[in-house]
């Protein structure tokens, strides 16, 4: 494909450079999946609708912004989720655009999307048709409830997936309404499962020559994250909805106490403390050194676990006047599991660990300029990830893709553009 910006790792091999993805994904639940593939060198070609200026992906023009400029190419989240991909426009209301898409599918390994059920089919590109175009194609659909089952026509976004699948419920305190997740955890995690599904299907194809359809339902991926609680239900008939639960910051499997998030001095500052066993407790109480540490109520792991409410009152009184990093330092020195609850600025710009890991790479976006994005949380000794570019502006690579891959001339592309096809 066309450009390849020079970067320090530009001469390193890329794990997935053999694969081309015809990508209709958007938002985070879909875009997050092909983002992983792009960072390992897969050629991800994102297809958008020129008529609606790609607005199906609501993140295209929404905050955060790098400066005062606004517009369809200026969304910071879109740039984050689509780094490393190419972007083309196809007006699929037009038969000529459908022909172009057909040619692109012929030379792609994967077609990926996270539309509502039936959208691709209505455009004439359901799985049966995709197979006619390319018999070993891998088609991965990702939607909230999947394409099969009574709720398959229902609509979702991250918070709805989290609500229905139990993740919202389990994140809360007893006697209060659910706190839930303050972000679309299942858009991220649904995207991870979608990426796994794509990679699994590619491995399957390598070994058998067969493509397949993957029907990913984000709610199902989410439900699978409750394993032991679901077995407690099927084996012991014990529901999670019961008195005293959920108590999300505590640990029941295994029982640990103390185990919680405690207030500190400062502006909304908190610290997480966990004692895994008696040795941790002894180290902890040595640091704290208050009378309640010797209270027989708290003497054994079982009695501490049974008396966490009074235990937490005491610990809160101890942490509250102290800075979170001071508590962290004291308990770290004693070998007790502890962590300040990090604010975004603290974990991104202050904690050297994330910068040392290279977790916030800078990408170059054609209009925004240099912007930092999420990196990948793993380093590969042979095929390290990298983001060659920022998220594509609307139609940024239409001409490149059509001329380089599909045999159109620059004049053809101009004419197609003038006629509203691309």
């Amino acid at each position, binding site marked *: 494909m066309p450009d390849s910006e020079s970067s320090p790792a530009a001469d390193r091999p890329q794990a997935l450079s*053999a694969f081309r993805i015809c990508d209709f994904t958007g938002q985070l639940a879909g875009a997050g999946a092909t983002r*992983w593939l792009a960072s390992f060198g897969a050629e991800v070609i994102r297809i958008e609708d020129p008529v609606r200026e790609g607005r199906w992906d609501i993140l295209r023009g929404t*905050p*955060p912004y790098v400066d005062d400029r606004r517009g369809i190419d200026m969304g910071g989240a879109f740039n984050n989720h689509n780094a490393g991909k190419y972007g083309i426009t196809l007006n699929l209301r037009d038969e000529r655009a459908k022909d172009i898409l057909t040619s692109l599918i012929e030379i792609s390994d994967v077609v990926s999307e996270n539309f509502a059920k039936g959208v691709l089919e209505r455009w004439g590109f359901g799985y049966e048709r995709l197979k006619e175009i390319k018999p070993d194609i891998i088609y991965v659909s990702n939607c909230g409830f999947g394409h*099969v089952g009574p709720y398959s*026509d229902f609509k979702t*976004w991250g918070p709805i997936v989290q*609500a*229905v*699948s*139990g993740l919202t*419920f*389990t*994140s809360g305190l007893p006697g*209060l309404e*659910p*706190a*839930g*997740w*303050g*972000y679309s955890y299942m858009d*991220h*995690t649904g995207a991870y*499962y979608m990426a*796994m599904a794509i*990679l699994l*299907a590619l*491995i399957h194809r*390598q070994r058998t020559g067969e493509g397949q*359809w*993957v029907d990913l339902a984000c709610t*199902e991926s989410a*439900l*699978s*994250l*409750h*394993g*032991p*609680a*679901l*077995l407690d239900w*099927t*084996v012991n008939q014990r*529901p999670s909805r019961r008195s005293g639960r959920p108590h999300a910051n505590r*640990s029941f*499997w*295994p029982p*640990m106490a103390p185990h919680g998030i405690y*207030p500190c001095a400062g502006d*909304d500052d908190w610290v997480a403390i966990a004692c895994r066993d008696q040795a941790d407790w002894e180290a902890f109480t040595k640091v704290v050194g208050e009378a309640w540490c010797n209270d027989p109520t708290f003497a054994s792991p079982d009695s501490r676990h049974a008396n966490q409410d009074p235990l937490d009152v005491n610990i809160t009184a101890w942490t509250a006047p102290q800075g979170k990093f001071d508590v962290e330092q004291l308990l770290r020195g004693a070998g007790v*599991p502890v962590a300040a*609850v*990090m604010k*975004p600025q603290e974990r991104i710009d202050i904690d050297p660990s994330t910068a040392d890991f290279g977790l916030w790479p800078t990408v170059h976006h054609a209009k925004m300029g240099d912007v930092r*994005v999420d*990196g990948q949380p793993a*380093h*590969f*000794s042979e*095929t390290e990830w990298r983001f060659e570019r920022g998220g594509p502006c609307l139609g940024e690579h239409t001409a490149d893709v059509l001329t380089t891959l599909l045999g159109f001339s620059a004049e053809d592309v101009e004419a197609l553009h003038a006629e509203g096809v691309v």
Partner: protein
Amino acid sequence: MSALTGLRVIELAREPIALAGKLFGDMGADVILVEPPGGDPSRDYPPFAGDEPGADRSLYWWHYHTSKRGVVIDLDDEAGRDRFLSLIGTADVLLEAEPRRRLGALGLDYEDLARLRPELIHVAVTPYGRDDAKSDLPFTDLTIMAASGPPWSCGYDDHALPPIRGPLQGYQTAAHFAFLSALTALLYRSVSGRGQFIDVSMTAASNVTTEAASYSWLVAQRTVQRQTGRHASVSPSRETQQLCADGRHANTGVPPRQPREFAALYDWLKELGLDAELPEAVFLEMGANWEGPFDLSRIGSDDEITAIFGAGREGLKLIASRVSAQDFFVGCQRAGLAVGVVNAPEEAFEDGHFKARGFQVPVHHEDIDRTIVYPGAPYALTGSPWAISRRAPKLGEHDDEVFGELAP
């Protein structure tokens, strides 16, 4: 045959990677779980079958170690290390979350293993990565998550209440990246013939799984604030969690904003006989009959649009107060609104949708002659079946079988 049939994965038992091994095993890989003498501590984690603690009764263990064979190897013993090396000689992937320097000290780190088995993909999971001394600090799922972002964004409008951690998700997020990384390296290996070393950081994994919290700071140096049951946000947003008539909650998502949605809501109110109780019903009817685009940017400035939009919210609240959360969810969805019932995990598990998709998976435990229903596949690969091929192993259950296979 499934996608990973025939691949061999060696997993050194540790909590944070248990899910990664399960993901391999349930897709057909031959996962050999290596435990130290005495077994992995999570064998003794509750909950227990029948609430009776005891060997092989931990449901925690049952869940995370499906589709694996189990062997005991003492890596601190020379004979054990030899046995481990023979196993590595047959392996495609090594999954481990050992303390950072442990394998090196034993002469079993990547360089040693790769000499013996160049095609090995070694995935190491540590709190901060192999190069960071902070990986030597003690940790739990809670401290990993606190250090890396999720709790900052989760909790209640009332900031006197603590930030909240979604239980176990720190480890599970790390496991997701361990599995993704290994699959990626397997695809490369099929081209290059070469394995590699992969250094996964648990805190980095959660750091990049926080959506707007990270990119609001990266892009615009703004800080999101947690709110009850909805996205943490730089500027406060309206509540989206609604108490329903049965005491359960629903997430109301985005309120109606299109004429067909106002119409569907109005019809539903009438069907329930509640239209007379909603003073704003007239505005709903007006929204239903709206001609042309309904310009949301004029909420607050245009009186009619503001009233219609407000009537949508009020109409939803009224219905929610009179029906169960499940009925509210289904009714809203039939009206075209993305609304969700806040289920407990078991309520979702028993829902007909997931049952119809085959999410309830019976697994026969031949040792107790009982069939146990497990949670099913996170994805439906129509050509590569996901399956629980066996219950979790007992301690050393497959020593003879696995070591027998290694014998020359």
